């Protein structure tokens, strides 16, 4: 097979088919089954102490897929999708903003020593402050219920993206920029053709982390401020003693969080064909 002819899609198909032939998918299914079985037996069959108040698997799933849910939330109620969409919208705003600001900032931090000496110390002080510590300030600084949540979500993402992008620039082998200068490239051309693509693998690692911490901070934000959203759903369900809704919210978060992560990875593969092909070659 000539590697040059393999397109992104073909490669994805090839990966999926070889994945299906490996033991991986079957181990994965077994893992899930084990978890669900543990849940079922501990809560519903053995009724272990401290587990008796937990919602059981049958209760949760029958509620989730019920046309007439007891607690008013299932895949048939519009409210369920409203929670999802609102959370997704906040993630989209925060993640995009963090990417649009974080990637260029990270590139310049890595590229220019002056900019780094100027901004990086500030960065190092702000970065370890947990998102939750920002909650009061976010509520004071921003009006309404929406912007504080988006701000909190943005914050963690922004640090992850910027930092990884900066590391990406620093990771680039010096010979690449030297080669570019040798070949007559200007400083700006070198930035565009060497620094940006060279940092790309780290940038996408950063974006993977960024989307993960975005969900983390989103739920934290939604629990203290804002209306609707999966974090809000979980929190209010807890207050109202509607325990199955908590589990529905949690599983939904898991599935959607994973999907957004996979989307970011897919975008990375699409933008870094060279890397996908190199790695694919390494696997064979």
């Amino acid at each position, binding site marked *: 097979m000539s590697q040059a002819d393999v397109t992104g899609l073909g490669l994805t198909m090839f990966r999926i088919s070889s994945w299906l032939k490996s033991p991986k998918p079957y181990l994965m299914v077994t893992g899930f089954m084990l978890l669900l079985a543990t849940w079922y037996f501990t809560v519903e069959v053995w009724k272990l102490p401290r587990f008796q108040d937990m919602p059981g698997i049958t209760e949760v799933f029958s509620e989730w897929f019920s046309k007439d849910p007891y607690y008013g939330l299932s895949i048939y109620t519009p409210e369920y999708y409203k929670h999802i969409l609102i959370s997704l919208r906040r993630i989209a705003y925060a993640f995009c903003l963090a990417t649009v600001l974080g990637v260029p900032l990270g590139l310049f931090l890595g590229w220019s020593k002056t900019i780094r000496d100027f901004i990086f110390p500030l960065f190092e002080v702000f970065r370890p402050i947990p998102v939750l510590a920002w909650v009061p300030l976010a509520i004071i600084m921003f009006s309404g219920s929406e912007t504080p949540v988006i701000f909190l979500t943005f914050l963690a993402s922004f640090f992850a993206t910027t930092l990884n992008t900066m590391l990406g620039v620093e990771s680039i082998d010096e010979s690449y920029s*030297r080669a570019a200068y040798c070949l007559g490239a200007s400083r700006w051309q070198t930035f565009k*053709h060497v620094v940006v693509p060279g940092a790309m693998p780290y940038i996408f690692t950063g974006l993977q982390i960024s989307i993960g911490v975005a969900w983390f901070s989103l739920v934290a934000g939604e629990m203290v401020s804002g209306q609707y959203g999966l974090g809000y759903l979980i929190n209010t369900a807890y207050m109202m003693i509607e325990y199955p809704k908590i589990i529905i919210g949690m599983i939904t978060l898991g599935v959607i969080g994973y999907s957004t992560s996979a989307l970011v990875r897919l975008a990375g593969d699409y933008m870094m064909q060279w890397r996908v*092909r190199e790695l694919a070659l390494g696997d064979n």
Partner: protein
Amino acid sequence: MNMIGEEMQPGLSKGAIRIEDVVKIYDPDGAAVMAVDHCSIDIPAGEICMIVGPSGCGKTTLLNAIAGFHGVTSGHIYLDNELLCSPEKPQAEPGSDRIVVFQNGALFPWKTNIDNIAFGPLMAGKLGKKEIYEKARSMMADAGLSGTENSYPGEVSSGLRRRVEIVRALMNDPKVLLFDEPYRALDSLTKSVMHEALLDIYYKNKVTIFFITHDLEEAIFLGHRLIIMTSRPCKPKKIVDVDIPHPRDYSVLTSPRFREIMNEAKGVVNEEAKKAFDAGEREG
């Protein structure tokens, strides 16, 4: 361009390097380390000049000064009687008249082979895109690289990668090619193929070659002249003329004259290697 059977390429008027009394002292943490010690070398245009010496002796320092990656402490370097660097202007401007072929290869892994090759002229912006790619394609064909245009460097063998890198340099009509032990990582079979390919490319293109190596066989097979360097600080210790006529092929390796030159050079090289070893220089 015609093949030449004699010592040097006659009538070649560009690409003469004159290194005059160059000193380079590193001062990383107060303890001055002399890497190059009053070194003078005269390389006529069109010569393949092999700089031979133990690893870590400061050969690369000399190459970096010519390329413009760092400056000299004192002394002058001229290219065709034009000053590259001197104490007043310690660092030469890197440019496409002197192109480095790096030790570990510096093809941009995020660009396809043909995009790598087209890089220099594209940056210079003097020719149209179509023209550049036509030239790239024909140069690749000449170097036996047809069919790998749209592969990424990571997808082709290391031998092919080296060839792509040389073609990338030649696209810019450089006066000088600077090789920094480019074949050290290759196995000996690939190496011998690469040597013949390099000579083939040299016969077709009028360039001066400044080639750093610690492999004596490689040095004698390729070079018009060996400049054997002392271990750190480095300066020429002995100059050996290789009076085996070009074009050469691998039969040269078993010729009596080759053995004679080998014997002549080997004693000097070993002496320096031993000194370097005793001085605790690592063989890296």
